[in-house]
């Protein structure tokens, strides 16, 4: 008996189970290899771009990337207080916005933060334009002392290594990018703020401007930093290159005549928005790399120090649009079912030759351009259009009270029902074709009347066709864009029209991505509900 319970062996002596699973694996791999090109294609051209777009709904790196110092300082600031942050925050904002303005990123950040707080866009734009005024106070004084303070080479000698300066002599644009200038360790320890600012300047001019720091006069930001360092630190022990120049400047800063400028006051002077508590609060709230702000906006909410709150009543729009999109898509689906069922029934029960002819009539509009069909509905439905003209001619409607059938929900539902009808007829037809006519005859011969025979015998068998058509039409309808745009007016537009607006006009891609993600989620939830209630196995496309 014990021998009989051992593993069954294949012809080559390996256990049958392993042999079988190997064969199956080979088969699976071959199948995978066959679909791989398509899979790869879909992945690269469809899934990846969608995933990338959806990722934007939470991505928010721009604030931290553009204002790194400010974000770090504000992390310790209590935004709930009505007090403004300390001087260090203003100092950090001056550095960040200055560098961002040189790299022309400040306006982009302004646009981003303007989504959350009106007025930030011009705050950043105006500040970026005027920020040189602060540093110029110091630059002018240092320059008056010694012209070398405004020249590239003396600065490079003060800050950079001799090896770098030798290498950069005689450099031309055609030679390709210059080596990175690294500030000497002794000067970085002596003048930390100046070294950091100069490093930014040198990196910018080498990498982004394609110019040698030897030829470029440093930013006024570097002069501001130099003042900060000289005012706070002692440089008397310095004996490196340009020591004379530095010590003279140190002596100048120590004189009572030396003019200084308070960064906080200067910023507020440029734009009084900097004195607005809300501006700082917004910067702090949106400094994390990821944000729920776009999703909150997509459900008519916004961030606040006390957590998410509803937007003002007169700015709530997306909830309404989502509800309307779903309602109208359902209305379109239902009217498609009602119109398509009899057509599909006739198609399925006519002799082949006649059915084919009718089928062409169904497919003909299907092959016509979407835009043409939509514009045709415009001509039909408008107040001076065909239908109204006929009604007036028949005397059913008076000339002064022509019906309004377009630029509202009615127009959208009519036009979209027409456009999506083939997607309902085709699956219904293919399911009805498989229902043997003998069933109906059998039901009648057993005593059912016409209605009972249809309702109890025929209809239940046609449900999979209705299911397939409904899913197709509903999902197509919920994402429709061009038809509602043309015939929908204000009350007949969908959420997709707002998504398109944010993609192409307002450039608020984060919000567009959040709305798109929600729309996708809504469709998936409805699909899941459909599966629970009707069962997805009950759907047949043919």
């Amino acid at each position, binding site marked *: 008996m014990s021998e009989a319970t051992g593993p069954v062996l294949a012809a080559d002596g390996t256990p049958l189970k392993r042999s079988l699973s190997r064969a199956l694996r080979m088969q699976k791999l071959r199948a995978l290899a066959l679909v791989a090109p398509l899979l790869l294609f879909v992945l*690269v051209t469809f899934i*990846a*771009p969608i995933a*990338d777009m959806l990722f934007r709904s939470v991505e928010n790196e721009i604030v931290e990337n553009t204002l790194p110092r400010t974000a770090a300082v504000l992390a310790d600031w209590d935004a709930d207080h009505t007090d403004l942050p300390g001087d260090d925050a203003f100092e950090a904002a001056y550095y960040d916005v200055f560098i961002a303005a040189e790299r*022309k*990123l400040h*306006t*982009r950040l*302004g*646009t981003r933060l*303007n*989504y959350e707080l*009106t*007025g*930030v*866009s*011009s705050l950043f*734009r105006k500040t970026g334009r005027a920020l040189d005024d602060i540093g110029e106070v110091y630059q002018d004084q240092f320059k008056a002392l010694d012209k070398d303070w405004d020249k590239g080479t003396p600065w490079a000698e003060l800050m950079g290594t001799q090896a770098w300066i030798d290498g950069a002599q005689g450099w031309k644009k055609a030679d390709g990018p210059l080596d990175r200038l690294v500030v000497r360790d002794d000067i970085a320890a002596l003048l930390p703020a100046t070294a950091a600012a100069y490093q930014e300047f040198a990196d910018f001019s080498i990498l982004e401007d394609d110019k040698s720091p030897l030829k470029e006069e440093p930013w006024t930001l570097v002069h501001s930093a130099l003042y900060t360092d000289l005012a706070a630190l002692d440089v008397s022990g310095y004996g490196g290159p340009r020591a004379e120049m530095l010590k003279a400047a140190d002596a100048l800063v120590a004189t009572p005549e030396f003019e200084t400028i308070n960064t906080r006051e200067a910023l507020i002077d440029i734009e009084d928005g900097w004195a607005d508590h809300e501006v700082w609060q917004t910067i702090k709230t949106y400094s994390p790399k990821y944000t729920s702000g776009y999703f909150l906006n997509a459900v008519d909410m916004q961030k606040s120090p006390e957590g998410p709150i509803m937007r003002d009543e*007169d*700015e*709530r*729009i997306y909830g*309404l*649009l989502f509800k*309307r999109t779903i309602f109208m898509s359902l209305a379109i689906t239902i009217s498609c079912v009602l119109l398509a069922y009899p057509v599909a029934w006739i198609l399925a029960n006519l002799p082949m030759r006649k059915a084919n002819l009718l089928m062409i009539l169904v497919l003909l509009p299907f092959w016509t351009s979407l835009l043409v069909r939509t514009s045709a509905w415009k001509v039909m439905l*408008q*107040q*001076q259009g065909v239908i109204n003209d006929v009604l007036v001619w028949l005397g059913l409607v008076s000339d002064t009270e022509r019906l309004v059938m377009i*630029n509202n929900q009615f127009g959208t539902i009519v036009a979209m029902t027409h456009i999506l009808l083939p997607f309902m007829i085709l699956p219904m037809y293919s399911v009805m074709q498989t229902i043997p006519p003998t069933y109906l005859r059998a039901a009648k011969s057993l005593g059912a009347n016409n209605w009972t025979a249809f309702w109890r015998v025929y209809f239940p068998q046609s449900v999979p066709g209705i299911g397939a058509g409904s899913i197709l039409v509903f999902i197509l309808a919920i994402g429709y864009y061009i038809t509602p*745009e043309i015939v929908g*007016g*204000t*009350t007949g*537009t969908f959420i997709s029209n*707002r998504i398109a607006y944010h*993609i*192409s*006009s*307002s*450039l*608020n*891609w984060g919000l567009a991505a959040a709305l798109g993600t929600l729309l996708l989620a809504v469709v998936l939830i409805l699909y899941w509900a459909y599966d629970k209630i009707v069962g997805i196995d009950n759907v047949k496309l043919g």
Partner: protein
Amino acid sequence: MKVITSILATTALTVAAGSAFAAGHGMADSLTIVSWGGAYQNSQLKAYVEPYMAANPGVTVNWDESSAEAVAKLRAMNEAGNITWDLVDVEAADGIRLCDEGLAMEIDHDEQLAAGNDGSSASDDFGDSIVSDCFIPQIVFSTTFGYRSDMVGDNAPTDICAIFDTDAYPGKRALNKRPIGNVEWALLCDGVAKDDIYDVLATEEGQDRALAKLGTIKDQVIWWNAGADTPQLLADGEVVIGSTYNGRLFSAIAEQNQPIGMLWDAQMLDFDGWIVPEGLPEDRLARVMDFLKFATDTQRLADQAAYISYGPARASSASLVGKHAELGIEMAPHMPTDPANAKNVFVTQYEFWADYRDDLDAKFQAWLVQ
């Protein structure tokens, strides 16, 4: 994402290499210009491009009619690192946005553009139309109203507030489906002085007031998205009065002989012009700048006015504006800059809209759907 980026980058390199080899004096020999299509693009072809090609044989020009989506597409191109456009025609507001986003190149107008034929520097000659450092103005246009002359009888409107007067002018109105323009007119007709409008609009009460005024005609309005909608609606008799760009109305009136009249009052003066995308390779940039210098000089801007009723953005071009190239009618009286038409213009304040656009748009759209 890396894969896509590198595929796109390879394509970009191939394209760039292809055009670089053909360059004559460090200039690419092809130019991709983005414009609006239709009669406007045709006027650019006739006035700028054909003369330029005649002077520079061997240069090919490709058109892309994508100006309406230019901002979004340029942003996508910038992210993919593959700029396929050389020169883009945009509205002033979009020019400002592109500059803010770092997608358009800053221009030194005096350095890079031709001086006026009267000797004035380019920046003086263009004057206020340089709304942004990146923007090279071409034309002055205005958003104004056209009305059905047969439907208003003897009572042709002369005042902008006719749009709110449903007793004197019963019937539907066509308005742009965005706040800009509409809210200003609403406040103006609600009794706010012209100089105070943007101050009022900056307040919550002012915004509500503008929407309330628009609310008095809300159920009488057909909202349009494309500039071609209003002339069509007027021609069909669907609306009695409607706003659109003045060039569209001109072609409906003068070229198609529709029974439409022009209302020149408080029209929104606006500019349209070129921007150069940021990050073009050197040879293509050299070609673009060469073309721009030619295409925006005094004579060329005046020539364009022979094909379409938009005023040249240079002051020095005004005296050179002549007759319509095909109809032979004098063009000056149809220009938004003509003194008779410009008696009471409204100048859009771009700075305000850059800040309040998102906010007011959300309010306006919410108001529309309610």
